[in-house]
């Protein structure tokens, strides 16, 4: 029997069972039951995806399930890649959720923040009070609604890439948006900021859905059919204007889901405020569906387009990468930092897709294939390390109730396993060897630097845009390193900077297992990316303008590019590092035989009492970067000096506040929101509260539609 069908069957059945269990099971059994059922859903996705990548194909039409017609599902290798990715993220998040939603642990609340602020200057009793206050809170992430919706959310996510008609895609897309919105709002009783985040998310995701709807409806109308097969067949007959209109609309729509600048504003709010396993699902899995939609419609259904499409995507990608990483490098909230880093990585993927589009339009299929493969591989790599990092942030949050890096620290001694796993995730996210992020960034760079060495001189567009793209990718990589050194170094190392961080304990086994699964995926992708060569080649087959066989050769331990001179061996680099480290350690041990290592008080330049308030914080770590980029970031700071009443020269207290607002949001959105509000006020007389009047609007509207239909028919 077909493994894809089996996998999707498991997905649907698991989701139904999970939703039922979540809604009906007693509170005590709920975390384990729904966690395991969610994991099952994920396993189904992994099975279906792996089968599709191995070359199986499958399609199905369910008649009458949707109001307007049949629901059509089909799975090809491109769908398979995303099914596998989302399924794998789901498996890790599902296992993790068992412990995360289980009893014990503390989740951030507004009360915590207040208590923490009061307790900040090392006042032990107040800090202790904060700890006690935290444990008593309702476990919002374990609520009946949240537990029941989680399996539905992952199932709709898994079905989106399997959708094979416009209506199926749109319905599943909306369902995914709704279920995720419910999950984002899970902790709305604990923190005010959750409601705000939910509002932004709801508004942006629906605006995006409208853009997708418009784009696809225009496409379907012009192509004369709504199934993907009909769209593919009809795409060639579309006028240039229609094609471009469709592309721009779906790029905006899918891009807003992917979190590209300037439609990213919901992402750094919604991803941090959701429960952490949901954050992981949203940031590692759901954003990739934006990329999927872009590739599916732009490269498969529309079959590629003129060069400016690629340039548009490239430019937006470059902007997203830079803006995302800049904001991440100065962020102090751990989960917000990870959210901005998602925008950064989506930007890198868009750079790959955009450059692939440029080369596809120029007929350079080898480079287009390589860059597209780099983008897809980066999506997979990003999913692996972002899952790990969000789950790690969740473990920290659960253990301390804190997301603020300025108050964390000292976790290496208290949560050793979480720290080690997060260290590996941070290494991957910083795109350093031997992490997996490095491999896909390397591929991306290889694609970009070979742009000038084709046959004949490069075109002006390529010659101008590719060096800039390399500059952007490189600066992004550099700042990404700064971001994750800060996140790991300040968040986990040195001594604790607050009382809750000082009493942190290691997470329960299921959470560690969830993180370990994600870390294992990172490790596998880091050491054996050559294994991805064949599946990637199949993914590229879907796109007519980039189809060019395998971009990578499966040459044992070396990652060898095909048709382009370039090779690198992540496995041998890792082995070399391991051997070198071991040899160095052995040398040092041999040299120091008989003289054991001593633990001594920190050398504080003679000062005897160094306390944790003298440590560098995330804010101070990022200060030089904030200054270097202050023309872009425009940090806000205010200093309030309160003197004693006796004399203004005696200072009682100094309050210093430093904040880096999201400048794009602050500049772009208030005018839009203001316009919307004005429009609302203007249309107020139309809505006077009378039910009869509203019914009359509906009646008149219906009559108008009937008249129009009659006249046009």
């Amino acid at each position, binding site marked *: 029997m077909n493994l894809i069908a089996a996998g999707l069957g498991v997905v649907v059945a698991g989701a139904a069972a999970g939703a039922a269990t979540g809604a009906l099971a007693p509170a005590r059994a709920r975390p384990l039951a729904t966690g395991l059922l969610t994991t099952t859903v994920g396993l189904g996705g992994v099975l279906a995806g792996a089968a599709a990548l191995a070359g199986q194909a499958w399609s199905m039409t369910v008649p009458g399930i949707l109001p307007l017609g049949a629901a059509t599902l089909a799975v090809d290798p491109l769908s398979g890649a995303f099914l596998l990715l989302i399924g794998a993220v789901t498996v890790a998040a599902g296992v993790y959720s068992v412990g995360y939603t289980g009893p014990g642990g503390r989740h951030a609340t507004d009360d915590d923040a207040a208590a923490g602020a009061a307790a900040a200057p090392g006042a032990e009793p107040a800090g202790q009070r904060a700890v006690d206050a935290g444990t008593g809170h309702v476990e919002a992430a374990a609520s009946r609604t949240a537990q029941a919706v989680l399996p539905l959310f992952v199932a709709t996510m898994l079905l989106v890439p399997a959708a094979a008609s416009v209506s199926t895609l749109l319905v599943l897309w909306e369902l995914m948006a709704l279920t995720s919105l419910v999950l984002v709002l899970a902790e709305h009783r604990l923190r005010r900021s959750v409601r705000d985040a939910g509002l932004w998310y709801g508004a942006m995701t629906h605006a995006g859905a409208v853009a997708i709807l418009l784009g696809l409806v225009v496409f379907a109308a012009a192509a004369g059919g709504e199934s993907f097969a009909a769209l593919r067949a009809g795409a060639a007959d579309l006028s240039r204007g229609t094609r471009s209109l469709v592309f721009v609309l779906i790029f905006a729509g899918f891009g807003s889901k992917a979190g590209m600048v300037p439609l990213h504003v919901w992402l750094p709010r919604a991803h941090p405020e959701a429960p952490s396993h949901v954050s992981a699902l949203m940031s590692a899995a759901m954003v990739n569906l934006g990329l999927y939609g872009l590739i599916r419609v732009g490269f498969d259904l529309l079959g590629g387009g003129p060069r400016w499409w690629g340039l548009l995507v490239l430019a937006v990608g470059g902007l997203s990468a830079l803006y995302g990483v800049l904001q991440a490098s100065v962020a102090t909230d751990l989960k917000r930092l990870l959210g901005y880093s998602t925008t950064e990585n989506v930007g890198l993927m868009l750079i790959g897709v955009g450059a692939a589009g440029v080369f596809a339009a120029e007929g350079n299929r080898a480079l287009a294939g390589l860059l597209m493969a780099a983008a897809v591989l980066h999506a997979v790599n990003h999913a692996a390390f972002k899952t790990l990092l969000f789950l790690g942030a969740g473990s920290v949050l659960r253990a301390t109730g804190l997301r603020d890096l300025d108050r964390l620290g000292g976790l290496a001694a208290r949560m050793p396993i979480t720290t080690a796993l997060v260290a590996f995730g941070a290494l991957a996210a910083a795109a350093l060897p031997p992490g997996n992020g490095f491999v896909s960034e*390397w591929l991306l760079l290889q694609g970009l630097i070979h742009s000038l060495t084709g046959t004949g001189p490069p075109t002006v567009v390529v010659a101008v845009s590719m060096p800039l793209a*390399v500059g952007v990718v490189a600066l992004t990589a*550099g700042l990404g390193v700064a971001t994750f*050194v800060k996140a790991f170094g300040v968040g986990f190392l040195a001594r604790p900077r607050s009382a809750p961080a000082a009493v942190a304990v290691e997470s329960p086994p299921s959470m560690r297992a969830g993180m370990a699964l994600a870390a294992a995926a990172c490790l596998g992708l880091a050491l054996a990316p050559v294994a991805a060569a064949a599946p990637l080649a199949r993914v590229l087959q879907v796109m007519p303008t980039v189809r060019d066989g395998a971009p990578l050769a499966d040459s044992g331990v070396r990652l060898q590019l095909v048709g382009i001179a370039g090779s690198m061996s992540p496995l041998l680099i890792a082995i070399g590092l391991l051997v070198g480290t071991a*040899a160095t350690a052995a040398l040092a041990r041999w040299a120091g035989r008989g003289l054991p290592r001593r633990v001594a008080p*920190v050398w504080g330049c003679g000062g005897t009492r160094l306390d944790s308030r003298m440590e560098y914080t995330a804010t101070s770590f990022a200060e030089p970067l904030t200054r270097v980029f202050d023309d872009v970031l425009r940090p806000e700071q205010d200093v309030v000096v309160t003197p004693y009443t006796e004399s203004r020269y005696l200072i009682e207290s100094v309050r210093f506040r430093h904040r880096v607002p999201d400048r794009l949001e602050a500049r772009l959105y208030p005018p839009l929101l203001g316009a919307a509000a004005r429009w609302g006020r203007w249309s107020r007389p139309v809505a006077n509260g009378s039910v009869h009047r509203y019914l009359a609007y509906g009646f008149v509207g219906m009559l108008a539609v009937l008249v129009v239909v009659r006249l046009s028919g």
Partner: protein
Amino acid sequence: MTGSAVTVGALAAVTAQLVLVVGGAPLLAGLMRQVRARLEGRVGAGVGQPWRDLRKQLGKEAIRPDGSSWVFTAAPRVLLASTLLIAAVAPFLSTVSPLDGVADLFAVVALLLLGTVALAVAGLDTGTAFGGMGASREITVAALAEPTILLAGFALSARVGSSNLAALVEGMLTAPGQVLSPASLLAAVAFAVVVVAETGRLPVDNPATHLELTMIHEAMVLEYAGRDLALVELASALRLTVLLGLGANLFLPWGVATTASPLPLLGAAMLFAVKVVAFGAALAAFEVFMAKWRLFRVPELLAGSFLFGLLAVSASFFLA
């Protein structure tokens, strides 16, 4: 039979290269200090002084500050390992290496950055204000130097069509006129700025400073003692040697052997040593004329070198 003989020869070449670089790196550091001393009218401690310092420090007690973790102990080892790996894969003596294709130019850059990161994380792990300060500054400089070094690499590899190190060196060897082309000159200037920034030399950082507030690299390693310190110092001498060696072979590749037979290798080793010593002495002499810059002028320097990198890329296709 001959195939295995070649492999053995190539492996021997890699070993010889490692021995040469590791043995020579402290001597290069000593030489640079000596050049400085002579220009300042002093006698100097002699070229071998860094080796004497290292031998002594290896025998001393290592200390871990209270409150730090395994990261503090692991960092010097990872730093040294990453640098050793570069020293093994780079085509310093011969372009025929069994390790070619393990790490290309971009991987080497990433490995250098890995070393920087290891030390920065350790600086944060000590929990002192100076450790954090050093880490923050070092990472800022490294992050801003990254675009330059990748663009310089882009300019070099755009001409050859590959970023593999041996291919770059061979490309330069087969077209020696390229040495004086604007693209390689501009890339060389950009690369030189990056070397200065990455190895913490003047005017970016003063390796001889005692004043904590002006430190970048030193501030991160203030807590290391004994054998840990020896590893850190060996690694920083090695990083300098490796970077100068890469510069020497990428921009002036003459003398690099294209086989793995002993005689050319010997010649290559001697020429390599001469080139690196000349570059090191020039760098040390240049430093005598420089004062350290304010930290916030460093981005200006790096923006300038970024521009050079970009011009190098552009020149490689406008003046081709």
